[in-house]
């Protein structure tokens, strides 16, 4: 039964090869372009998210210095019910930016679930002295092995190795851009000056590159102890605690818990990269809208061609019905045609999409010393390809269903009588 219907459908398709091919090409291009779009956008987003995530901790705990001067210490000694205390131009005094009891907080954080690494840091503004030139930058005192778990620093080293920071006395890891400006390479000495005016010499043990200019041009890593020495602080002096989680999507809730528990400010990575997150969301939205449009246009193409085919085949439909083919058989005949167009179009679309994505992926990225990227980022996810075929088939099913149902309802008498 179904066999005859399929045979008729196949004969119809093969009798009009050019028309079949054109309809197929609509689907092929729709799905091919969809795959290119989604693979490229997805690759770019993943690259961006990866870069952002490795350069920002999942949760960052720090002491946000308060600048709230609505209350004065005078209020405690003089009666404010009778008089008003006015202090002109108050300034903070005896405010330290450090976190108290860092060791206790760190060990407490480690008891939480879902924590991969906790890295206490002491960061400070410094000047890198290069002869008479002073370059401003930031110095991070860290336990390098914990920090490596946070940032995957070992993968971002251009020269040297992170372990050397622990082996060499007063060693320093410089950002790639910074090292270039200082004309310093592994083994050279660089002198750093603190805001307090103290200075220390460090030996370069390696350079790293995150691929973000604003980091690579200013940042350097030394051991926590060295920064405490440079700033003249005790060995408990820490300004930041950076946390890496096993599942970074849970950072938001946990940040709020830490902020309440320890009384310091705790930012999750989404807050720290809010603008980047918005642009990722917008790009995703755009990709979906454009892909959807491409596939729907292909669907309209099929709808049109099926309608035309059925219009041209009214007599054939009438005679098939007279021979004893039921409405359901007629629907099968035409639906099978549009599904065949959809299936082959979609499969060709996969090949086209893969070829184009591969082509873009092979293109070298314009050479750029600030970004650690050699070719265009493109992802090849099976789920995108599966979705492409499923959506392509679905579009052709819907596009073919309407004309086919119409064909099934055609009244043979009206046509046979002329």
């Amino acid at each position: 039964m179904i066999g005859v219907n399929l045979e008729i459908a196949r004969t119809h398709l093969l009798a009009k090869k050019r028309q079949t091919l054109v309809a197929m090409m609509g689907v092929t291009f729709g799905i091919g372009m969809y795959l290119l779009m989604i693979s490229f956008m997805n690759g770019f987003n993943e690259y961006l998210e990866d870069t952002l995530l490795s350069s920002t901790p999942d949760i960052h705990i720090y002491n946000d210095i308060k600048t709230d001067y609505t209350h004065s210490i005078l209020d405690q000694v003089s009666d404010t019910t009778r008089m008003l205390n006015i202090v002109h131009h108050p300034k903070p005094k005896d405010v330290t930016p450090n976190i108290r009891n860092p060791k206790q907080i760190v060990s407490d954080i480690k008891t939480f679930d879902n924590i991969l690494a906790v890295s206490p840091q002491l960061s400070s503004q410094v000047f890198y002295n290069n002869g008479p030139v002073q370059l401003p930058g930031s110095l991070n005192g860290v336990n390098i092995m914990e920090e490596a778990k946070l940032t995957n620093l070992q993968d971002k080293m251009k020269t040297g190795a992170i372990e050397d920071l622990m082996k060499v006395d007063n060693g320093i890891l410089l950002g790639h851009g910074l090292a270039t400006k200082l004309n310093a390479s592994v083994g050279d000495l660089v002198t750093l000056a603190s805001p307090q005016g103290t200075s220390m010499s460090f030996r370069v043990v390696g350079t790293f590159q995150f691929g973000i200019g604003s980091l690579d041009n200013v940042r350097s890593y030394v051991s926590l102890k060295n920064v405490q020495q440079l700033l003249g602080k005790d060995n408990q002096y820490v300004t930041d605690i950076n946390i890496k989680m096993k599942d970074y999507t849970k950072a938001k809730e946990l940040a709020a818990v830490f902020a309440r528990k320890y009384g310091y400010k705790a930012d999750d990575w989404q807050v720290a990269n809010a603008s980047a997150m918005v642009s990722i969301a917008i790009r995703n939205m755009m990709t979906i809208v454009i892909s959807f449009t491409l596939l729907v246009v292909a669907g309209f193409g099929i709808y049109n061609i099926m309608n035309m085919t059925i219009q041209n085949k009214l007599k054939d439909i009438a005679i098939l019905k007279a021979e004893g083919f039921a409405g359901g058989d007629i629907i099968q005949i035409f639906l099978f045609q549009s599904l065949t167009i959809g299936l082959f179009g979609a499969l060709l679309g996969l090949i086209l999409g893969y070829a184009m994505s591969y082509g873009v992926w092979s293109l070298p990225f314009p050479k750029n010393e600030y970004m650690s990227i050699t070719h265009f980022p493109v992802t090849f996810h099976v789920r995108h390809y599966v979705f492409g075929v499923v959506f392509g088939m679905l579009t052709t099913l819907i596009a073919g269903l309407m004309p086919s149902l119409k064909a099934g309802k055609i009244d043979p008498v009206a046509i046979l009588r002329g």
Partner: protein
Amino acid sequence: METVLKAKKVNKYFYEPEEFHVLKDISFEVRKGEFLSLIGKSGCGKSTLLYLLSTMDTDYKGEIEINGMRLTGLKQKQLAAFRNEHIGFVFQFHFLLPEFSALKNVMLPAEKLNRYSKSEIKDRAYEKLKMLDMQDFAMKQSSKLSGGQAQRVAIARALINDPTIIMGDEPTGNLDTANTQIVFDILKDLASSKGQTIIAVTHDPEFAQKSDRIIEMKDGEIIKQ
């Protein structure tokens, strides 16, 4: 002789462009093996009656019975299956499917019926074509046949499932004298030797005269039978 077709008080109305009573209380019976001609002037309702009997038009009042089966009120799907098995059609125009060969056109209703294997169907289709002297054109694409050849293939197609009744809507209306004679002889032979019933609407008085029985209609009523 047993009765193969019964029409009881069949009434039909057209509603477009305005209400019109096309068929008025039509009742008649047809016996097995009869060659029946339906004649009458244009617009008398003879074609309308044929399409009601064909089960393709179901919008009527009254009752139609073929082969002892009451067809009035059946679902479209059941009617399609019934047509496939019991009724063969020959139209004024051949209505062959242009993409298929003559042989394939003959085979399709049998493949739909699905009673015989594919090779048996092929043999049977060949046999029917041979009966109509069309075996040499079996593999020819149907759109490349001449009018007379195509009409003969169409008759072979109507015969493929050995239907109880063969219905013709001016089966010779588009043929020259020679081909008309051939087609008439074939139909006549089917009725007399194979006991198949023929009901044909015709304008051709000569064709009607040579058939077994004539039903003449006028203004939606049977005036002579």
